């Protein structure tokens, strides 16, 4: 497989996780592309305007990328903390609308500001890797780290509190869970993931403009989670990988590809209303895989 496509798939998986985090807490936030755009803009500005970051070698130093990621995380985190306090008072579809508005405001601001390059955007973002494979390896490591963090979150107290809020917010509050703070935590984590993903994407794409964080992206990233499932972190990763790859893999069918892509997104929730990856799926698989391995072990003994 083409490493460039793999890189896009991995970025898709990261964005899926960003949408998933608030959704696991029952909050339908579509702000992910907004924070993604902020991360990308931070990376584009810093790497093209700050000569000190460029280093002396032929490629852009990874340490500078990491520094950009830290700054993007700081910026998106602080912004999410402030905005979350306000918008998370809204529920359900109203929260979704407010976060769409946020994404659109950011897009229009980026489009009209002088220093973000207006409609043209910022070009010539320096490359820390010489090949797409280098990007893919770096992003895979990042994805693995975030998956691990999500896994730990799900299995510990704050993760249980988030799932409780999704099931019944009022009952969760009656168990002593600070629902406002827990929802805010999920929203901030979502922003952090989107922000650092934006940094990687900006370097990979080589240029950055306002179109990269728009309403279309909100819906595409939401589809990753709806398709993959929002009960465990594996769902959005699966959805992000597959739905990013699909339009490319369908290229041979020509103009039909978007129709087929649309049908897949439609059929997914129809047959898997909880998403493709659910905890029930694990329950179904576990005894079977366990059975196979014990059978294999016995076979070896004999």
């Amino acid at each position, binding site marked *: 497989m083409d490493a460039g496509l793999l890189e896009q798939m991995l970025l898709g998986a990261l964005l899926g996780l960003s949408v998933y985090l608030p959704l696991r807490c029952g909050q339908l936030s579509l702000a992910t592309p907004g924070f993604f755009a902020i991360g990308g803009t931070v990376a584009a500005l810093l790497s093209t305007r700050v000569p000190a970051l460029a280093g002396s070698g032929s490629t852009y130093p990874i340490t500078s990328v990491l520094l950009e990621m830290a700054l993007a995380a700081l910026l998106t985190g602080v912004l999410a903390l402030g905005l979350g306090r306000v918008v998370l008072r809204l529920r359900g579809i109203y929260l979704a609308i407010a976060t769409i508005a946020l994404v659109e405001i950011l897009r229009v601001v980026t489009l009209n500001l002088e220093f973000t390059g207006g409609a043209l955007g910022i070009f010539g973002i320096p490359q820390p890797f010489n090949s797409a494979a280098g990007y893919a390896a770096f992003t895979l490591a990042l994805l693995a780290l975030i998956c691990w*963090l999500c896994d*730990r979150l799900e299995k*510990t*107290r704050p993760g*249980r*509190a988030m*799932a*409780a809020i*999704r*099931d*019944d917010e*009022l*009952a*969760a*509050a*009656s*168990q*002593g*869970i*600070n*629902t406002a703070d827990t929802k805010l935590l999920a929203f901030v984590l979502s922003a952090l993931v989107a922000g650092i993903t934006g940094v990687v994407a900006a370097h990979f794409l080589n240029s950055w403009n306002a179109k990269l964080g728009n309403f279309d992206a909100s819906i595409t990233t939401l589809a990753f989670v709806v398709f993959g499932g929002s*009960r465990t972190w594996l769902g959005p990763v699966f959805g992000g990988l597959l739905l990013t790859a699909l339009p490319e893999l369908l290229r041979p069918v020509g103009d039909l590809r978007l129709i087929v892509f649309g049908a897949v997104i439609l059929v997914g929730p129809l047959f898997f209303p909880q998403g493709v990856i659910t905890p029930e799926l694990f329950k179904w698989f576990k005894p079977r895989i366990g059975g196979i391995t014990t059978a294999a072990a016995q076979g070896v003994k004999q």
Partner: protein
Amino acid sequence: MNLLQLEGVGVRFGGLQALQAVDLEVKQGEIFGLLGPNGAGKTTLFNVISGLTAPSSGTVRWRGASLAGLSSHRIARLGIARTFQNLRLFSSMSCLENVLVGMHQHARQPPLAALLQTQSFRRRESQLQQEALALLDLFQLEATAHQDAASLSYGDRRRLEMARALASRPQLLLLDEPAAGMNPSEKDQLRELIRRIRDQFKLTVLIIEHHVPLMLGLCDRLAVLNFGQRIALGSPDQVRRDPAVIEAYLGGGT
């Protein structure tokens, strides 16, 4: 001192006076019953105590301090736990996880230890699991520990709500119609169970229930509400003979 004290509590929903100047004192260790016809305001009273509904007038005091303005999670942390009349379990979680969520306030661990799964983290986590299983055991739910809460029978769900409420180690337990949907033998068991948990966990219990014989046999004291007002208060015997109660339940003479 009274554990819980209501002073002139009133709740108005638009044109409807759901509660009107209700005075009530609940003493440490007693099982206190709330009786009354449908729509008398019993659940509204629970909602006021647990912080889900703000009273329009009057004060609720917990160990002498006013609960005014406290959100429901703060009130829960003070040691007031409740069950819900219309069952509000976390339906996508297993019974065990439901009880673990109930332990939320005692389950805090350092984030770094949780990330790295240190030995002390794992020890504490398994300790919490044992505690949760013991609670399920108390309510005869141990066999369903790993089943989804949504798959339980109605009576089992009621018991799981009680187990979850107890998991927060409350001092006051509010039970909203715990016997609803249970058969007569389950109701008898429930009476014994409520007594047992009161003694074992040194609880004070405030209970709403429609089943009058159960209430007369279980409660130390009872209050009767009708149309948002307290119309009677006293021991089961006193309440049974109270003319206002007889009128509320059977209707007045012509």
